[in-house]
């Protein structure tokens, strides 16, 4: 995705280029997975350590588990829609619009959540405890996923409307995008499961 080798100087076949791009994206997913691991590790480590009773201090606020699931629902919906859309390459433009809208809604929802965080201390603007800290980190990563996915979905929407785009390679692009969309949906579910255990 990030590298366009369609008319690359060494003229590889679209099939080869497509596979290679998907491989590249999957390796980057490993990196993103490690990022996710570090966040989840942080969550459970601080939760179990509960230094100075600071995970959720006395009188502290939390988000409900349901709100965590709500914020990642669009990720799952979009990934499923994209999977279906991929089967019918001619209709991909329409499917991608749904995907794009789902991501945009998700980003909006996440932003809305983040701007209404209950656990910021009024006077100091500090976070109440380590639950609050970790929550905002995970939400931020989720937000990053939404924005990046919206960019890709927007590209797919625009490109589907352009006749000039090579359909063979585009089919591979859909599969490559699918790898990423599926991964961020999985990552979202992992985050939601994690933040359910308050």
């Amino acid at each position: 995705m990030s590298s366009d080798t369609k008319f690359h100087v060494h003229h590889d076949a679209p099939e080869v280029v497509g596979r290679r791009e998907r491989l590249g994206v999957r390796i980057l997913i490993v990196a993103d997975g490690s990022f996710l691991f570090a966040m989840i590790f942080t969550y459970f480590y601080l939760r179990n350590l509960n230094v100075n009773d600071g995970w959720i201090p006395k009188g502290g606020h939390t988000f409900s588990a349901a709100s965590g699931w709500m914020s990642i629902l669009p990720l799952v919906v979009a990934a499923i829609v994209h999977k279906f859309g991929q089967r019918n390459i001619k209709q991909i433009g329409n499917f991608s619009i749904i995907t794009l809208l789902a991501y945009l809604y998700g980003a909006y929802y996440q932003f809305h959540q983040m701007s209404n965080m209950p656990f910021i201390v009024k006077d100091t603007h500090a976070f109440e405890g380590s639950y609050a800290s970790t929550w905002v980190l995970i939400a931020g990563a989720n937000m990053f996923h939404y924005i990046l996915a919206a960019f890709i979905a927007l590209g797919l929407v625009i490109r589907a409307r352009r006749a000039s785009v090579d359909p063979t390679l585009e089919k591979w692009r859909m599969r490559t995008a699918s790898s990423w969309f599926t991964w961020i949906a999985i990552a979202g579910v992992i985050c939601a499961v994690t933040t359910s255990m308050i």
Partner: protein
Amino acid sequence: MTTLSQQVSNRPIPNPKKSLITRLNMGTGLIVGIAFALATYYSMQTTLDDATLNFQRNNQVLLATMFMWSIGFLVGIGAFIGPFRWLIGKDLTAEEQLYLAGDGQGIKRYFKYCTDHKVVGIQYLWGVIAMLAVGGSMAMMIRTQLAQPGAKFITPSIYNSLVGLHGITMIVAMIIVATGPFGNFIMPIMIGAADMAFPRLNALSWWVLFTAIPVLCSAWFLGGIPTGWTAYAPLSVQAGPGMNAFIATIIIFAVSTAVAGANITATVISMRAKGMTWNRVPIFVIGATISVALAVPAFPTFMVAMIQTAMDRTFLTGFFDSNVGGSGWLYAHLFWIMGHPEVYVILLPGVAILMEIVPVFVRKPLFSYTAAVVGFAGIAGLSVLVWAHHMYMSGWLPMLNGPFMVTTEMISIPTGLIFLVILGTLWNGKPWLKVPMLGVYAFLWNMLIGGITGLYLSDVPADNYLHGSMYVTAHFHYTLMGAALTGAVAGLSYWYPKMTGRMLNERAGYISFWFVQIGFQILYLGMFIAGAEGQPRRVSDYAQMYANSNRISTFGAYLIGTGFIVLLWAVIHSWRNGVIAPMNPWGAKTLEWTVPYPVPLVNFDTPPVVTSDPYGYGKAVK
């Protein structure tokens, strides 16, 4: 079905000379980057809420400025043209891609967003040389301060900053010292590929890294960092504004590493020449690939730790603040989950270069290719299970010290295989002691010392004494500098003819080698003694009783410094005036020696077909 070239010729060809791509270079990058940075700085200074803490506000402004500089530079140099053109469905044309590859642009392409892997390799080479020079000068300052007790040379503030910035500059430089120049320039040719898998990502990895350099330098003007390169929290949370530069550098560098790692791994997996099965891949390629493949999952944890530090400093979260439920141990975990794999990310390519060199200079096949691969894979696999040996003394769950001690000491088994491969290749051979080959012997000795001292450190009771002492410093310099950097320097002298078309000045090479290696032994012998005597590391001053060992060390350091200046002279001088190199000066059998200098844009006129492994040296044994 029409071929790709027909498709290209069937469409109207836009003139690339008129497009935006041709106008962008490092200069526009600097202009846009600085403009972004200034705009961010002043707009945030004026708009930010006055009620927030000053400490918090300063950090917000500085971090945003640094990131916007990086993004601005990348916009200015044209890094986002490709993704943007993809977004709007107007993919780059073949002409534009050819232009991006720097076709026929001479010296200018080195200052552009150039996708040619050979250009990126040279850019990395000079980047690394610059970083090593800066980091080395800092080491000279550190040793000058420690030449005598009493802290007579510089203040503790400056000293602590020097220690930290020397550390991080060197770590960054060492991570890319082999995979940057050689992984980009040599490796694609070695596997018979025309370019990297993702040429634009390749350029991106270099230029992203480039934007981190001024950010790191800015730490000096923001009061330095007091934390050392490990940046342990909560010390890093209370540190002054210079810390922001450190945080931004790591985050930017982690992006670069992920991109470069994905690119190199994908290249080796998907772009090998016809016939190059996995058991015919040159060992350097294996080592470098395992190294970057290890870096891909390792670095994000450091990035997360740094993002958390930044959040603690800017948004007053409490990841590391124990008053609100955070813990410094969390930082240590995240850091060392990256940190210990990272030392092998540094070591493996250096070792792999030496393994590539030995067969050529003793004219024997590489001994037990399988053992080499198993050794690399074993080290990489175990390295992710040993991080807590840095935390034996932290008080974190002491009952886990035993298991981590076992995994750590097990690493000596695959490391032994690495030794065996090199020794087996040397065995009964008549080594040709050219400059690259000298590195192999230096490696054997240095890694031996580094490895055995590592055994003491991995042992919990012994680490009770040695942890955090100068002994540790000496140990990891033996492995990182004595082994990995020695490998990289050997690689430079080995591939210099292919990268520059000229031979590296041999006499200067010998002089530099002996200065560096002798100085190295003196420096770290002194440091081992100081550590055994009980001198903690990272101290700006020490008691009188350590004066002698430290004086010895400083003397050794000056020898090393001189040796590297000689090497730098040799590199620059030979680049311009060296003897013109033949196509294959060492008589090696890997593919990179079959292409002429200058290497053509697509490397091979006809794609090579590989029929055997590249180590078919020697006479058959009866």
